């Protein structure tokens, strides 16, 4: 009857949700038919709201499908959800660790919940602890672990018993590249050693590229499936690398390319060059003009390229009626005119005005030093990236720059104001977008904007003008009366940015703005940032997507509170050993620099404590 060699088999699977407040029905899954063989590593990818989490929750027997058939390990998910739950493990996006319990107590708790006998634990624990590298801190409360370690502990708790199928929902969101690599090593080891089937959803397409099978979901429908090569094939022959003309900042050429949706599908900065996907193979004259005759270098497609091609095609198909998102054929930000491009050329390099000045900044929590003697400066109009592993002191530095945390010692000047004396004065000049959506969820879009406008001293005619302006700029027009908590993810972020830019601050601080966002949303986000920087706003940003560092003029890499590298992306890559013979991408450079520093002096236990 059922094919037992399939880990998952679905036929015409449907699932709807009623959104209470707006009385709308969301079609989370709309006829998904797929098969995942046992013992394979399968990746679910797709933009936000594609139905990845819904599919995983249906598979875990936590939800019931409205229609269609779903068999997990040969068991009917509708009839016997408990039978499935006895044989699988599921790690949701926010895994429920008990923060006050120690690492070992968390493991015990989950072992108790799953009824794992004591003898089995003795055998299982050492292996889990070894795999996750948590053996040295079994007594530490889970709340005191870094983000990466928490995810590893979550995975260990999920694996206290041997499941036949492991479901992981975006396990690497908000996790730094090093921890991300470790998590993947664990997962791959499980697949090869224990013949475990794993279904993993992820926003990192390079991760999906290393899976056996990839399923591309889009608005509840399966857009494509197959081995990574199959997906890549969609972009094969269309991907090129171009070096910007001399003195052209990479991201400006990238933005200019992205603004030509007629001939360009996607463009991202990469190692000082721009990587782009051409819509048709023939040579477009508009493109030649844009590139100022720079030579194109054909390069092999990545999974992300294929994904972008698929998504753009799909969006083009159902574009006409779609009003939710700004149409992709229109630029999300004002096009960069040649004048703007030209004016931006010199900015990052020359000694422009320094809007942030940090000298010997130190922050201690008790006897733990979160930030040790850090110095850097940021110039007007620069995009400045703060990178580092979880718990490296990024967030602490960031909070000190925003005036949310006083420094223990050192000099800190933001927007020409010393933060030690005139914090309120400095706050007038900055905008802040936190990592989590931090506007008032039960207030409407307009109420939120009016409140924050008022808080920044805008009122009357001026407030109304600015409201209109940011709503236009961030495509929020006509959304006035929707409670902001009910907006879809991308909207929330645009609203948060709109609120932070109402008072036209000199500096915009963004804390992991792209965590968990899909590639499309991230392109759109960076296009806006590029435009903002071009108009003179200074941007300070943290991110875990190393390739995004390529958008920055300069970056700083921190670990254990110390600055390990500071400079343009090119300089940082060079520091890691990048050369024309051995090209390193940003992620490799990052891992190299951090590991090199850790190899020299290894205060492991200190490093992982989160500030």
């Amino acid at each position, binding site marked *: 009857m059922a094919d037992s060699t399939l880990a998952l088999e679905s036929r015409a699977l449907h699932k709807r949700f009623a959104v209470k407040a707006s009385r709308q029905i969301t079609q989370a899954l709309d006829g998904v038919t797929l098969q995942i063989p046992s013992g394979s590593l399968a990746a679910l990818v797709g933009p936000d709201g594609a139905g990845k989490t819904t599919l995983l929750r249906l598979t875990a027997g936590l939800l019931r499908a409205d229609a269609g058939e779903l068999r997990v390990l040969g068991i009917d998910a509708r009839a016997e959800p408990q039978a499935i739950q006895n044989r699988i493990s599921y790690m949701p996006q926010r895994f429920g660790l008990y923060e006050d319990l120690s690492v070992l107590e968390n493991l015990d708790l989950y072992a108790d919940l799953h009824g794992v006998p004591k003898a089995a634990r003795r055998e299982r624990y050492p292996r889990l602890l070894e795999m996750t590298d948590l053996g040295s801190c079994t007594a530490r409360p889970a709340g005191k672990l870094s983000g990466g370690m928490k995810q590893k502990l979550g995975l260990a708790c999920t694996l206290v018993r041997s499941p036949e199928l492991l479901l992981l929902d975006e396990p690497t969101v908000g996790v730094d590249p090093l921890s991300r690599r470790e998590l993947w090593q664990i997962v791959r080891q499980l697949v090869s050693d224990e013949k475990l089937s794993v279904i993993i959803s992820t926003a990192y397409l390079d991760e999906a590229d290393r899976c056996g099978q990839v399923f591309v979901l889009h608005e509840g429908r399966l857009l494509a499936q197959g081995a990574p090569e199959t997906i890549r094939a969609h972009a094969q022959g269309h991907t090129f690398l171009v070096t910007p003309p001399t003195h052209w900042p990479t991201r400006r050429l990238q933005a200019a390319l992205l603004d030509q949706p007629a001939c360009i599908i996607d463009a991202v900065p990469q190692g000082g060059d721009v990587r782009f996907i051409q819509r048709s193979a023939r040579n477009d004259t508009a493109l030649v003009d844009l590139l100022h005759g720079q030579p194109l270098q054909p390069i092999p497609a990545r999974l992300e390229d294929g994904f972008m091609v698929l998504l753009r095609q799909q969006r083009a198909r159902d574009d006409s009626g779609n009003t939710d998102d700004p149409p992709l054929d229109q630029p999300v930000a004002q096009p960069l005119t040649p004048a703007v491009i030209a004016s931006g050329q010199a900015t990052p390099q020359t000694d422009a005005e320094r809007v942030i000045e940090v000298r010997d900044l130190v922050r201690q929590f008790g006897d733990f030093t979160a930030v040790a003697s850090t110095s850097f400066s940021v110039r007007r109009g620069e995009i400045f990236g703060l990178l580092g592993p979880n718990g490296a002191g990024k967030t602490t530095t960031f909070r000190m720059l925003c005036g949310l945390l006083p420094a223990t010692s050192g000099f800190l000047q933001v927007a020409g104001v010393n933060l030690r004396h005139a914090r309120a004065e400095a706050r007038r000049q900055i905008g802040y977008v936190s990592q989590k959506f931090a506007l008032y969820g039960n207030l409407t879009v307009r109420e939120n904007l009016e409140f924050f406008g008022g808080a920044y*001293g805008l009122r009357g005619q001026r407030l109304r003008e600015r409201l209109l302006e940011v709503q236009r700029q961030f495509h929020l027009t006509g959304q006035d009366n929707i409670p902001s908590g009910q907006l879809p993810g991308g909207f929330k972020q645009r609203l948060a940015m709109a609120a932070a830019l109402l008072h036209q601050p000199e500096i915009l601080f963004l804390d992991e703005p792209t965590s968990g966002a899909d590639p499309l949303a991230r392109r759109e986000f960076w296009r806006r940032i590029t435009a903002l920087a071009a108009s003179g706003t200074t941007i300070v940003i943290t991110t875990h997507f190393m390739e995004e560092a390529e958008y920055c003029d300069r970056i700083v890499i921190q670990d254990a509170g110390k600055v390990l590298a500071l400079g343009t992306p090119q300089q940082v890559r060079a520091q890691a050993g990048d050369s024309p013979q051995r090209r390193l991408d940003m992620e490799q450079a990052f891992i190299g620099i951090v590991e090199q520093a850790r190899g020299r002096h290894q205060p492991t236990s200190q490093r992982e404590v989160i500030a």
Partner: protein
Amino acid sequence: MRDFLHRVLILCRKELLAIFKDSSSRVILVGPIIMQSLLFGYAATFDLSNIPYALLDQSHDAASTALIAKLDGAGVFHRVATLQRQHDIAALLDTQQALLAVHIGPRLEQQMTAGATAKIQLLIDARNSNTAGSAAAYVGAVIDRYNAEWRAKQGLSGPPLAIETRAWFNPNLETRWNVMPGMIAALSMVQTLLLTALSVAREREQGTFDQLLVTPLSLPVIMIGKAIAPILVGLMQSTLVLLITLFWFKVPLAGSLATLYLGLLLFTTASVGIGLSISALSANMQQAMLYTFVLIMPMMLLSGLATPVRNMPDLLQFMTYANPLRFAIDLVQRVYLEGVGLATVAPDFVPLLVITAVTLPLAGWLFRNRLI
């Protein structure tokens, strides 16, 4: 200054929107308060011991001395004054030094031996009607025993002594009269405290507090803005209980509304000060909730609502000075039932002002030192 007010205003507006936008929180702020008012109005009963009483003995004969010995020996009465003139009674009851006065008229023994029924007058402060009722019952019991002994000794049939009770301030001895005005303060305090305690804790948990702190809004503005909304909610709730007391239970309002509301405003502000301090102290909503409940119970117990403050051990009596509810209840009861004016209840304002003056700056200090 205009800027300052504008900022307080927009913050205030945001707080009120945040509270009343949500239909469930609207229900929570109105429903329970009505339910509790009715519940307390219908169902409250109390007990007591150690009743302070004043004695006016105009007989000074063997029968009266024996009666007084029985009263003093009963274990529940505590004589605070021995009076000579009838009109001294009023002052003692007014100031609550005595809960009741026992008035033995002249020639008690003479009347009794003559076989007539002599009257013992009992004057009770009935503002706290439960206490008054129980106290009267105790006196009744003592006199019943006295009568029984007298009859056994003298071989008479009729009761030699009869009690004539006069209740002051609340002539019909209705419990409701005493309970409901107290509730005007007590019921609103619970939610005012909770609302305030949660307000910052919620923002901290949801990350919006950081967003607020990076704006140029100064800490005093944030504090004031955060205080005004719950004060308004607290007053609204007090008004609800007041309306129920007045129109449902029909307890007549003796004093002036202006005085009552001035007192309530001071009381709510003091409660909000305590709530903000809790909020500044808590890292998350769960902590804020726990701290609030840990505080509410003792505040209720030490308010004089359940047991008269003067019956408490000295240490607890001392602690009640930090409890705004104690003064609010006293104030509301006196204004509502006795109809006293501003001058009379002014002493109750002082501790409320002191509590406010301590808790608001404390909350500010805690914010500064915990947040940053």
